[in-house]
C-alpha cells in the first residue's frame, strides 16, 4: 500500500475497483455493491459557496485583489481594515503578493466583489508521511509526491497525540504519519511549517 498513490487508492476504494469491491457507476453512487449495501443518494445538490473564493493572486489594485480561481473563474476580493489575514502568521495586507494562493471568506456584494472577512494566504493542510528529517527541514510524502517542509524558528510547532502544542520537534520520527498546516512558497514549492500534528509510525 505504501507504494500506491493514496488518492488513487481511496478513489478506487470508493469506486469499488481496489480489489475489495466491484466497480460501479460514476456520480452519486452506491459505493458498496459487493456488500449489497443500499444506495445512498445525494440529498442536497453540490453548489459553490458564493461567500468563498480560492485561487492565485494575479493583480493588486489598491485594496482589491484580482484572483484567478483554480477553475479559471475571476474573483475581485476587497480587503478592508477589518479583514483578518493569515500568511504563516496573522499578518497585514502588505505581506500579500502577486502569485500567492489564497482562500477567502466574506460577503459577496451586489457588484460581484467579495468583501473579505478572512484571507488565508498560501495556507495548506495536508496529511503526509515524514520521510527524512534534517537540520531545519522535513521531507514529507504527500500522495507519493515529495514536499520539503521548512522549520521556521519560533513558529513551527508540533502536537503529539493529546499533548499541548510544543516547539520541541525532537519527537518527530521518520515513518511517522502527520498532518501539517503550513504556508506554501510559490517560488520554491516548499512549505513553511506552522504546525505538525504527529500521528503513528507506519507499520
Amino acid at each position, binding site marked *: 500500500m505504501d507504494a500506491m498513490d*493514496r*488518492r488513487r*487508492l*481511496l*478513489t*478506487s*476504494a*470508493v469506486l*469499488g475497483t481496489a480489489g*475489495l*469491491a466491484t466497480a460501479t457507476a460514476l*456520480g*452519486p*453512487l*452506491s*459505493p*458498496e455493491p*459487493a456488500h449489497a*449495501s443500499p*444506495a*445512498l443518494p*445525494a440529498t*442536497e445538490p*453540490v453548489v*459553490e*459557496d458564493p461567500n*468563498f*473564493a*480560492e*485561487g*492565485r493572486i494575479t493583480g493588486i489594485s489598491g485594496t482589491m485583489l484580482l484572483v484567478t*480561481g*483554480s*477553475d479559471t473563474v475571476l474573483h475581485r476580493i476587497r480587503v478592508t481594515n477589518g479583514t*483578518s489575514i*493569515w500568511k504563516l502568521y496573522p499578518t497585514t495586507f502588505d505581506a500579500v503578493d502577486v502569485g500567492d*494562493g489564497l*482562500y477567502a*471568506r466574506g460577503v459577496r456584494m451586489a457588484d460581484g466583489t467579495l468583501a473579505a472577512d*478572512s484571507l*488565508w494566504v498560501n*495556507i*495548506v*493542510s*495536508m*496529511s503526509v508521511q515524514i520521510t527524512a528529517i534534517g537540520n531545519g527541514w522535513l521531507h514529507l510524502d*504527500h500522495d507519493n*509526491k515529495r*514536499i520539503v517542509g521548512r522549520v521556521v524558528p519560533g513558529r513551527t510547532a508540533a*502536537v503529539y*497525540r*493529546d499533548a499541548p502544542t510544543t516547539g520541541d520537534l525532537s519527537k518527530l520520527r521518520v515513518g511517522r*504519519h502527520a*498532518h501539517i*498546516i503550513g504556508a*506554501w512558497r510559490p517560488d520554491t*514549492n516548499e*512549505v513553511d511549517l506552522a504546525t505538525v*500534528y504527529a*500521528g503513528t509510525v507506519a507499520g
Partner: protein
Amino acid sequence: MGCSNSASPAYGEMSWFCCGAAWGPCGSAGGGACGTCNSGSHQCAWPHASDACYNITQPYACGHNLALRGCGHVFYVTNRCNGSCVSASVADCGPNTHQFCGESHCCGSTCGTDRLIDLTPSAFSAIASLSSGLLPCRIDS
C-alpha cells in the same frame, strides 16, 4: 435532521483538505473518491464512504463504529469550540483515522478525540479559521 439534533451523533476531530481544481501542493488533488469534490463547495471526506474505504481508514481501530454513508450523503458538522454548524456532503474517502488513534484537541474542557471527518476549505471556513488545523466536532446525520 440538522445540526445537533440526531439521535446518535459522532464526536471526534475535524480537519480540512483541498480537492478539485487547486493551487500549490493541492494542484493534483483531483475530484476525490466520488469524483465531485471541489474546495469551493461544502463537502467532506468520511471514513466509511464504502466498505472498501472503511478497510483503509480503519476507524474501528480507534474504537469508532461509524455508519456507512456514501457519496452525496449530507452531514451536519458542528465546531464544538464555538457552536457553529455547517452541512457538507460526502465527496471523498478519509481521513485515515487509524493513523491518528488517541489524538485529541480541546477548547477549554471540550475535547475531540480521533480524526473522524475532513471538510473542504469552504465548509471548514464557514465554521472555523483554516489556520486552526484540527478542532473538536460533533457530526450529525
